[in-house]
């Protein structure tokens, strides 16, 4: 898959002296969903804002579909739709007027059929002539998406799309995002909800203090950095791990009734069969067994706090 956005040596230092981005290099593939994870103030919004033309970069370059975002801003911005983090909407105009305004700003003539369908897809059609101030927060969020899609962009930036929305709406948003991806739109979303990235992203990038710590295929990332653990519940409590089991990566719970074995899913031999045999040989009786895999959240927390 070719890159639709290429970011090379991108830097941003604000007038205050705060360095928001430190030499970012990143390629975003055509048609993918890329989730940018990072704590508050990591530089996610600055990165998006530079690509969309809201913030001037201090150094480096960004090309969109091969065009420079500064020199060829008319072409690159035409390709991009932006859904901002805040509910930045007027109050008194109608949904229909505001989506038409957005389409017009991107140089496109009104297309009632397209915009009607867009409002239907976003469950906004019955609110077409409602004033924005009368809508709920969730509906306003949909209006922002409708505005961003009103000019039929190839790339959509979603800055914290589900921040502060309820679980139901969040799942609706994920459905919308999946539909857009199916229609060929490249989606870049920033989030600090790990489950959001885990649920919908193809690739995950982690930003901390203006640096891109990693960019990786989601599945591969979870395999590479994720750990799998097996919890063994014992029928009788023990005070210490028997010497015969010392070679295994085992942890004994305080109660003495639970052993936790951490293993690598990528290695050919997980050691589970041999461990279970050795447990039996030292005379311990099993009550129950279960396995868990570390989530993207564990990986993220590890990355952000240990690097």
């Amino acid at each position, binding site marked *: 898959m070719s890159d639709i956005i290429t970011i090379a040596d991108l830097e941003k230092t*604000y*007038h205050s002296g705060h360095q928001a981005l430190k030499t970012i290099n990143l390629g975003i593939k055509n048609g993918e969903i890329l989730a940018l994870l990072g704590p508050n103030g990591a530089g996610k919004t600055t990165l998006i*804002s530079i690509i*969309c*033309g*809201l*913030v*001037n970069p201090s150094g480096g370059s960004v090309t969109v579909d091969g065009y420079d975002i500064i020199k060829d*801003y*008319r*072409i690159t*911005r*035409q390709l*991009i739709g*932006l859904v*901002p983090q*805040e509910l*930045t*909407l*007027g109050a*008194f*105009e109608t949904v229909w*007027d505001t989506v*038409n*305004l*957005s389409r*017009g*700003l*991107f*140089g*496109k*003539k009104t297309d009632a059929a397209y915009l009607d369908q867009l409002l239907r897809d976003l469950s906004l059609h019955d609110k077409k002539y409602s004033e924005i101030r009368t809508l709920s927060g969730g509906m306003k969020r949909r209006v922002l998406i409708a*505005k961003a899609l009103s000019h039929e962009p190839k790339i959509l930036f979603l800055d914290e799309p589900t921040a502060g929305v309820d679980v139901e709406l969040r799942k609706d948003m994920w459905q919308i995002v999946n539909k857009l991806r199916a229609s060929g739109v490249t989606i870049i979303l920033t989030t600090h909800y790990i489950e959001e990235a885990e649920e919908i992203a193809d690739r995950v990038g982690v930003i901390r203090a203006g640096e891109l710590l990693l960019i990786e295929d989601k599945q591969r990332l979870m395999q590479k950095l994720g750990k799998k653990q097996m919890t063994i519940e014992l029928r009788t409590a023990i005070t210490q791990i028997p010497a015969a089991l010392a070679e295994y990566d085992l942890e004994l719970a305080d109660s003495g009734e639970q052993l936790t074995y951490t293993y690598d899913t990528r290695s050919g031999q997980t050691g589970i069969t041999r461990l279970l045999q050795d447990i039996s040989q030292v005379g311990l009786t099993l009550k129950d067994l279960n396995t868990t895999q570390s989530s993207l959240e564990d990986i993220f927390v590890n990355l952000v706090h240990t690097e």
Partner: protein
Amino acid sequence: MNFNAIKVIYKFEMLRTWRTLMQSIASPVLSTSLYFIVFGSAIGGRIQEVDGVSYGAFIVPGLMMLTLLTQSISNASFGIFFPKFTGTIYEIMSAPISYFEILIGYVGAAATKSLIIGLITLATASLFVELHIAHPIWMLTFLVLTCVSFSLFGFIIGLWANDFEKLQVVPLLIITPLVFLGGTFYSISMLPPAWQTVTLFNPVVYLVSGFRWSFFEIADVNVYLSLFIVLAFLAICMGVVWWMFRTGYRLKS
């Protein structure tokens, strides 16, 4: 050139006027009527004529200028300040529009609104006094140039202001006194000689004088000098806006 973008900004701004029709149109009509009642009838009854023109008619160009200046500044400054304040400016800034196109959309709409209000003021005034416009082309030239240049000035204030107080401070503390002391309700020849000299430093004097000349062929200063001052003010405003856009002043970090 992104003509569609200019058109939608212009239409959107004009739509705001229709939504607030009472405030946009009725308010200047009412205030003009009040000025005529107070200045035209109450004071005019004592002054009678100025340079051969009845006092009621004499104040019409000044009143129109007062309305044009305040409305142009207020429309344009609010037009750009409000999207900045609410954050909706992101949409304009991320769209494929040049700064010049943004300017045409916002300033064009603000100037149109004040032009309409100026004409309504003129129509209202004609209900109170008999009016004759000696040089209609000059009158329209001054009218349009004033609307455009002061809308540009308002746009600058809207970009510069980062709170509501700053938005109001220039119109209230600078423009209003300059207009009232700029010969709106009197001829500067009625002032003592020393004050006549001081008054010539007030740019509004030139606007009111030139505009009044287009009505009655009476002026405090030469009409070409008035035209030059308006054009110079327009050029200065264009220069400031160009610098603000080039540097992204209060728009881009």
